């Protein structure tokens, strides 16, 4: 499911912290229905890039176009309403509330009445959250808190899903399930995933964008990116999978 018009575009996007440019002139384009992976060394600017897309950070220069409309300076809730859902690198969830209450708040953002209950039931079944439903999120293990955040994002049925390291802290089996989930999400949404787990990326990736020092280094298919000598040098390492 993919047509020509870019659903998300950035032009010369820049974000400086003091003298340091975390994101340094990024021209990024995402087609509707794509499943894109974003990889790159630590400090390359991936999470900062994501935070600008979701409105959590303001760019210091450049533009972000969502469906052709600039969203720079828009309030984060407005961007959320326009269908951008983000799962952050460090889970951003309501730690002092139960999983159920977190899910309720996510569902209530777009739904009313009985639709809220059924949305919660369906996501609980889909992600197997039953056993932890009444636990306080702050007391869950790190990986479980990630699942809660993912569930909250999915409940909102976003048109663009940004996943920042969704498999961090997950076992192989859980990683496999996340890959399935990402593919399923891609049936109805455009998805961008930041990850370090190459096994995971191999399971889901079609096209891969490589960030390095705040800029896009290369954009290509998974096989080509993994074989790229510069990428191996700055990121993958010598013993990386082939």
């Amino acid at each position, binding site marked *: 499911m993919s047509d020509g018009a870019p659903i998300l575009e950035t032009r010369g996007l820049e974000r400086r912290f003091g003298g340091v440019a975390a994101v340094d002139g990024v021209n990024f384009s995402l087609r509707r229905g794509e499943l894109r992976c974003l990889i790159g060394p*630590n400090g390359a600017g991936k999470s900062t890039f994501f935070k600008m897309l979701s409105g959590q950070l303001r760019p210091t220069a450049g533009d972000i176009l969502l469906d052709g409309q600039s969203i720079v300076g828009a309030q984060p809730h407005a961007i959320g309403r326009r269908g951008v859902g983000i799962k952050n690198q460090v889970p951003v969830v309501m730690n002092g509330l139960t999983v159920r209450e977190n899910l309720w708040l996510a569902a209530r953002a777009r739904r009313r009445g009985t639709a809220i209950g059924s949305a919660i039931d369906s996501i609980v079944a889909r992600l197997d959250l039953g056993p932890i439903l009444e636990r306080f999120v702050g007391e869950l293990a790190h*990986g479980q808190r990630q*699942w809660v955040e993912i569930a909250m994002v999915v409940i909102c049925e976003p048109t663009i899903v940004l996943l920042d*390291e969704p498999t961090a802290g997950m*076992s192989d089996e859980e990683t496999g399930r996340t890959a399935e989930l990402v593919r399923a999400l891609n049936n109805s949404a455009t998805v961008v995933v930041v990850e370090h787990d190459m096994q995971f990326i191999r399971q889901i990736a079609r096209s891969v964008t490589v960030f390095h020092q705040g800029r896009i280094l290369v954009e290509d298919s998974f096989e080509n990116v993994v074989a790229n000598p510069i990428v191996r040098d700055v990121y993958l390492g010598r013993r990386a999978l082939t």
Partner: protein
Amino acid sequence: MLDVADLRSGYDGIPVLAGLSLSVRELEFVGILGHNGMGKTTLLRTLIGILPTTSGEIRFQGASMTRLPSHARARRGIGYVPQGRGIFPGLTVRDNLRFAAFAVGRSDDLEPILAEFPRLGPLLDRPGAALSGGEQQLLALARALIQEPKIVLLDEPTEGIQPSIVEEIIDLLKLLRGRRGLTILLVEQNIDFIKALSDRVLLIQKGVILRELAAGDISDAAALGDFGAIES
């Protein structure tokens, strides 16, 4: 070096560790694998003393540690790299490292640790909060090692770190084992990392050690068994 007997602990009335026992010999690298919520992080937190022990014994180098406060355990030579990094966001990289050295009365000369972590060199004056997630992870690791611990407890140290740096960490830790005499108890999800680094691997489920495997066996999915769904 580290002996744990029938350890029980938990949060606010919810028991997590249910009588866990393990031993780590000097210079061993021991890995712990397990699903989320099975007790991996709880185990390390109980060992370092942030979480109180409900019952059971922890002995380090023959002496009991069960009732010691965590700073005393740190001074005895137990290093800890928590999940989620735990670095001080308001302090610079330099100060994060110096603080750690002061806390256990060691020299705050940064040369040796920077030689082991060259990537932190150019970041010395950056505040912790301005580092990327992976850079923070490196800092957390360096901070533990600057204290010259006898044993290091690592909670998912490769989470969020790019593959090439993961390789560097493997090489570095192996080097340090020989050079400094380092012992490691490692909690991880990254099977490749555990395989490359550990001498043996313990599988944790529902707060106890289920099985022990030699590092070579963990590529075998059958040996790993089925951990089941996310449970608490």
